[in-house]
């Protein structure tokens, strides 16, 4: 770059580079999950079976959304985030019980410009596009974690049923932590058609500066507990990024 503004960490890592947009908070709101029909598997003829689960659907308006969840009362995850058209995304969340979940949507700085009078520092690229603004809350990464429930390779195979895995992380340097860039471990089998079967799902609970991951077994209707799962090993993958939500 020949002109403009850059910022680095005290260890020499780039924070603002003068050309690349930063992730900035665009909006935050609460959603509530309630009982709904969650796809759990299809017959060979394409008949979609569902199981009852606590889910919620909503729309997010963003160019490049980074959706951060804060869920102190339930284990939650993002099941899907589908681009409907430019800057419009259809999001579905799941949680292990009916709960209110905080949603924080970060986006390109230029798409998240605060309303009202300007003050402080703004950084623009050479084309005049806003890439950082002191009025915005930038997404601060605290940690990233990933794993696989069964330590499985990615390919298809038969794996032993796991009823539960639990992990916990604490971040004492912040007062409130959220989870983003979530990958969900999810295996399901509607053994008796809709409303009869089982699924395993990973969810993330966030309370204060602690993140708890729980992968658990959920059963309904007339079904038998599985001894094994036939699926792709990558379906057991989980991952998340811990994002500082303090003072938002």
């Amino acid at each position, binding site marked *: 770059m020949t002109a403009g503004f850059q*910022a*680095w*960490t*005290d260890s020499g890592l*780039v*924070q*603002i*580079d003068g050309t*690349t*947009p*930063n*992730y900035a908070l665009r909006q935050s709101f609460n959603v509530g999950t309630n009982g709904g029909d*969650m*796809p*759990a*598997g*299809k*017959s*060979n003829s394409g008949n979609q079976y569902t*199981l009852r689960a606590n889910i919620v659907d909503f729309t997010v308006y963003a160019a*490049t959304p*980074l959706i951060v969840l804060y869920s102190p009362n339930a284990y939650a995850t*993002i*099941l*899907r*985030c*589908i*681009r409907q058209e430019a800057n419009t995304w259809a999001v*579905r969340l799941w949680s292990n019980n009916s709960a209110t979940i905080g949603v924080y949507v*970060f986006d390109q700085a230029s798409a998240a410009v605060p309303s009202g009078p300007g003050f402080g*520092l703004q950084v623009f690229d050479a084309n005049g596009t806003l890439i950082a603004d*002191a009025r915005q*809350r*930038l*997404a*601060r*990464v*605290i940690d*990233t974690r990933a794993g696989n429930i069964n330590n499985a*390779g*990615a*390919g*298809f195979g038969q794996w032993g049923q796991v009823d539960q895995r639990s992990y916990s992380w604490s971040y004492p340097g912040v007062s409130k932590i959220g989870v*983003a*860039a979530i*990958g*969900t471990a*999810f*295996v399901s*089998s*509607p053994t008796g058609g809709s409303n009869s079967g089982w699924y395993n799902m990973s969810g993330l609970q966030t309370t204060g500066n602690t993140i708890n991951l729980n992968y658990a077994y959920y059963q309904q209707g007339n079904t038998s507990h599985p001894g094994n799962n*036939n*699926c*792709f*090993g*990558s*379906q057991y*993958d989980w991952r998340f*990024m811990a994002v500082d939500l303090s*003072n938002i």
Partner: protein
Amino acid sequence: MTAGLQIFDARGNVVFDATYRVLRIAGSVYINGGGGSLVDGRLAQGGFVSFQPDVTCGDGYLSGGVITPRFSISGSTLTWSYADRHNNYDIVQSGFVFYGGS
């Protein structure tokens, strides 16, 4: 801190300083089965991947499975991969990937 940029909110809380690792959005790519990679120098100091799945593992066929992607960043290279299909009832978890430096 002894140097660098500090930003405070209206209540005087520090919301940015020289210890903060923040995300820079380098780009996006849509993946739909099959592996791939790209090179971006902004990943070299550490990078992030944020995948937006189009389908869930409950959308698959009972006679098959859902092939979900895996990601890795090594140096300036972002790589994604999908396992091979095992039969015609497998489906792929497609979606947009946002990536960048952190």
